[in-house]
């Protein structure tokens, strides 16, 4: 879908982006050579890494829209989401598929396994995209753009301000980087915070500003003679060549001792930006000299996609390939240089069909929100996204729960640990204590609902239909009872129930739970009663119904939805409550939660515990399915009468 090429794009910049992405591909290949201690690979790696990521920052600044700062926050967030975060999420999900089939290099992440996927997801959320390491730059650029949105409104008036700000941002970012030490893998810090919002973004924003400044000064725009470009490029090249080796620290990432922007590992305060700017100048000048060839420009326009596709090479292909090259072909400098170039070009060529496919099929998902594709034919809307993300978040800790419950976890049994099994569930049903606990729970919750609902129905009817002396105070009184924490009341309740022989019995817990379920139920049912017109009662009573008959025969069926919702609320607070349930069951009648607690010993079978927990959720799910239509249909709750 190259048909829609925005006319305003500057070809030189797209070519520069092509060079930059080629350097990313090359850098990640020579990284493997470097890790295998190949001298040529090490030099080449240090050379490329001394400027290539900063080049992206400069280029992003060069094409940055200055009017962004005038946008309302909502529009800024929307754009940030559709052009950055959504592609990031989509492509990360895509990159989570290959580990299922191929073995790759994932830095100790046990893939493919549930544990590995979980850890990888958490790392990704915290800023280290484990499933596609090269894509970190997309997160970084989000951070930079947030800084831009916040800061540029104060700078846009003059170029001098921008220049001074660039210097200050660099100094501040560099200083924070030394001071905060947010990222230091040797200290076990959480990876990623550095470049998300803190000093990484601040440091890079200096280079972003440099890009803005270059465009404002119309750098490389218009006709420039090759006679001036070539010597300048040669000088820039020599500047990089003679300085990149000099930068030897202090590096944050001691393991490599190279400039690695991802780890906010910059090195020398002056040499780092000097080499970087020289490198950027070199590529920009080279780009200006390059003819605007269609494929190159097209690749340059799709650097974001290519960065993700580079993940395939980074994780799966480069490590074995580098090994093979060193062992099978040659490790001499010139050969390595040529081979790296070839690998880069071949890799890029292999990516081209994929880039084409993504752009043709789902352009909205790869950062082109205004286009439509063959699969996604309409512009996307994202109303479904917040609930979806929220539900995923809710399922996050539940999935390992289910997974553990389906595996053997106890050592020394007949089947080895880690084997898939249903035995945990079978053992629960063979254990009378555990099944008894489930029945106890069901018993007291049912009892509680049976006590609460009639009592609350009557009270709610009164609150809904009549005014009387002290009605407001009474409602407040009920509310206060609901607000009293169980811990406050648990001791006297225990003593009273002990006298009345209610301890160790489901009825005892059911009664104790009335303290918070009755007020809530009154509150819910009152609103349902109020939705039924009062004239309705009067007509029925005029027709000769006795009050009792009217209430049972007519009112209760009408109130069925309300009763369902109230029962759901009772269930929700009663089933899961643990303080009363624990204290009121000393020797027997233990509910499900306490039965699980007793499973813990010095040799806990965690699989069994998890299976029991899964079972404890199931009645609740059934309960919601029963009440869901009424909840979904909606009920007006009034906050008091």
């Amino acid at each position, binding site marked *: 879908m190259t048909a829609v090429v925005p006319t305003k794009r500057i070809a030189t910049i797209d070519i520069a982006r092509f060079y930059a992405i080629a350097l990313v591909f090359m850098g990640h290949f020579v990284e493997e050579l470097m890790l295998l201690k190949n001298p040529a690979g090490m030099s080449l790696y240090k050379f490329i890494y001394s400027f290539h990521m900063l080049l992206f920052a400069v280029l992003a600044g060069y094409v940055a829209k200055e009017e962004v700062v005038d946008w309302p926050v909502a529009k800024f967030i929307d754009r940030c989401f559709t052009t950055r975060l959504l592609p990031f999420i989509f492509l990360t999900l895509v990159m989570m598929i290959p580990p299922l089939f191929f073995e790759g290099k994932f830095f100790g992440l046990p893939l493919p396994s549930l544990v590995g996927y979980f850890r990888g997801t958490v790392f990704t959320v915290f800023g280290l995209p484990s499933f596609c390491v090269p894509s970190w730059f997309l997160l970084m650029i989000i951070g930079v753009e947030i800084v831009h949105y916040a800061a540029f409104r104060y700078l846009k008036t003059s170029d001098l301000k921008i220049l001074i700000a660039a210097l200050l941002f660099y100094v501040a970012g560099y200083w924070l980087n030394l001071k905060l030490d947010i990222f230091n893998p040797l200290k076990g810090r959480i990876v990623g915070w550095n470049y998300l919002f803190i000093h990484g973004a601040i440091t890079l924003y200096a280079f972003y500003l440099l890009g803005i400044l270059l465009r404002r000064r119309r750098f490389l725009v218009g006709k420039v003679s090759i006679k001036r470009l070539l010597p300048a490029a040669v000088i820039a090249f020599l500047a990089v060549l003679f300085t990149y080796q000099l930068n030897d620290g202090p590096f944050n990432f001691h393991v490599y001792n190279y400039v690695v922007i991802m780890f906010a590992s910059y090195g020398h305060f002056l040499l780092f930006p000097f080499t970087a700017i020289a490198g950027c100048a070199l590529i920009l000048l080279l780009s200006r000299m390059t003819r605007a060839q269609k494929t190159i420009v097209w690749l340059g326009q799709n650097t974001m996609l290519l960065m993700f596709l580079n993940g395939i090479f980074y994780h799966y292909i480069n490590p074995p390939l580098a090994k093979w090259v060193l062992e099978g072909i040659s490790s001499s400098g010139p050969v390595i240089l040529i081979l790296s170039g070839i690998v880069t070009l071949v890799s890029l060529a292999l990516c081209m069909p994929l880039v084409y496919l993504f752009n043709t099929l789902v352009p909205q998902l790869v950062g082109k929100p205004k286009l439509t594709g063959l699969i996604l034919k309409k512009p996307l809307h994202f109303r479904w996204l917040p609930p979806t993300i929220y539900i995923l978040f809710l399922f996050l800790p539940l999935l390992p729960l289910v997974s553990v419950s389906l595996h053997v976890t106890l050592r020394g049994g007949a089947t080895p640990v880690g084997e898939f099994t249903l035995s945990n569930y079978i053992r629960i049903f063979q254990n009378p204590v555990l099944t008894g606990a489930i029945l106890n729970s069901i018993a007291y919750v049912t009892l509680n609902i049976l006590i609460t609902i009639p009592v609350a129905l009557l009270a709610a009817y009164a609150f809904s239909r009549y005014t009387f002396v002290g009605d407001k105070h009474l409602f407040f009184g009920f509310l206060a009872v609901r607000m009293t924490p169980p811990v*406050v009341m648990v001791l006297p309740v225990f003593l*009273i129930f002990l006298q009345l022989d209610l301890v160790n019995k489901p009825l005892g817990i059911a009664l104790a739970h009335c303290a918070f379920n009755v007020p809530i139920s009154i509150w819910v049912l009152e609103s349902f009663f109020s939705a039924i017109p009062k004239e309705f009662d009067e007509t029925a009573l005029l027709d000769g119904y006795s009050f009792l008959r009217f209430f049972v025969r007519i009112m209760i069926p009408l109130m069925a939805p309300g009763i369902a919702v109230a029962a759901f609320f009772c269930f929700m607070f009663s089933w899961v409550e643990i303080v009363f349930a624990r204290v009121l069951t000393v020797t027997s009648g233990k509910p499900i939660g306490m039965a699980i607690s007793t499973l813990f010993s010095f040799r806990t079978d965690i699989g069994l515990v998890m299976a029991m927990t899964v079972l404890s959720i199931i009645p609740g799910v059934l309960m919601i399915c029963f009440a869901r239509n009424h909840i979904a249909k909606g009920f007006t709750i009034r906050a008091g009468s």
Partner: protein
Amino acid sequence: MAKVRNNKAWLFLLPAIVLLGFVAVLPLMMVAQYSFFDVFHIKSKVWVGLDWYRDVLGSIRFWETFGRSMLFSAIVLTIEIPLGIAIAVTIPKKGALSALCLVCMSLPLLVPWNMIAMIWHVFLALAFGAGWTLKIIPTWAAIVLMDVWHWTSLVVLLCYSSLTTIPSAFYQAAAVDGASRWNTFRYIELPKMKAVLIMALLLRFIDSFMVFVEPFRLNAGGPGSSTTFLAMELGQEVVSQDYGPASARAVIYFIMILTLSWAFKKALAAHESRKMREKMVVAIRKPA
């Protein structure tokens, strides 16, 4: 719809009053009584007057814990309420999908409370390995995350229930007027949710202020006492059978909560009367 003034309504309320009197008021009175005694045994106790109150209110520890609980409630509310509203507003209003959303979102509300901490223990161990329990900030983050996971759905359910009662004509009118999404929210949805939101706010405030089971099971108030909240101190005293001080503490907590609920009721009354005034203004203008 005018309500009938009828004091016989008290008869309808009698069962509720008797029940709550038995399971709530009577225990509270017993607590109040114990709080003035040094309780050695249920049958042997010595009058100590206000000593326990002086002890509790005079200790720095109590105020530290109080501040911690306040901080926790503040953090939890600032996350859960806006998040709950945002989710509720974006759930589809009808169809099978909305029911599915509700079912999925209710799941955390249905897990026994002591198991919530265990589920998170397993999950956090998978994600971050062991060792986070020794540090203050990760433990706080874990407890907050756990509470958000557990209770945001309640806010969602409450808000959603009131949102579904907005007639679609309102939305159509807003669309005709070319109202932005934000304005639709601000002038149609938020006012409708206001009453429920106050309730959700109060429920969540009190429950998070008196949070007990989850942080206790997650890290037993540690490291040190950096995640010990008010209810956990009371729980410790009840477990160690210091009934006198525990009762005094319980009374103090009850009074705190009563005060807060009362302040809430006042705010509510002010809100209701304002609404009444608005209605009257509309009613007066109508004939003209």
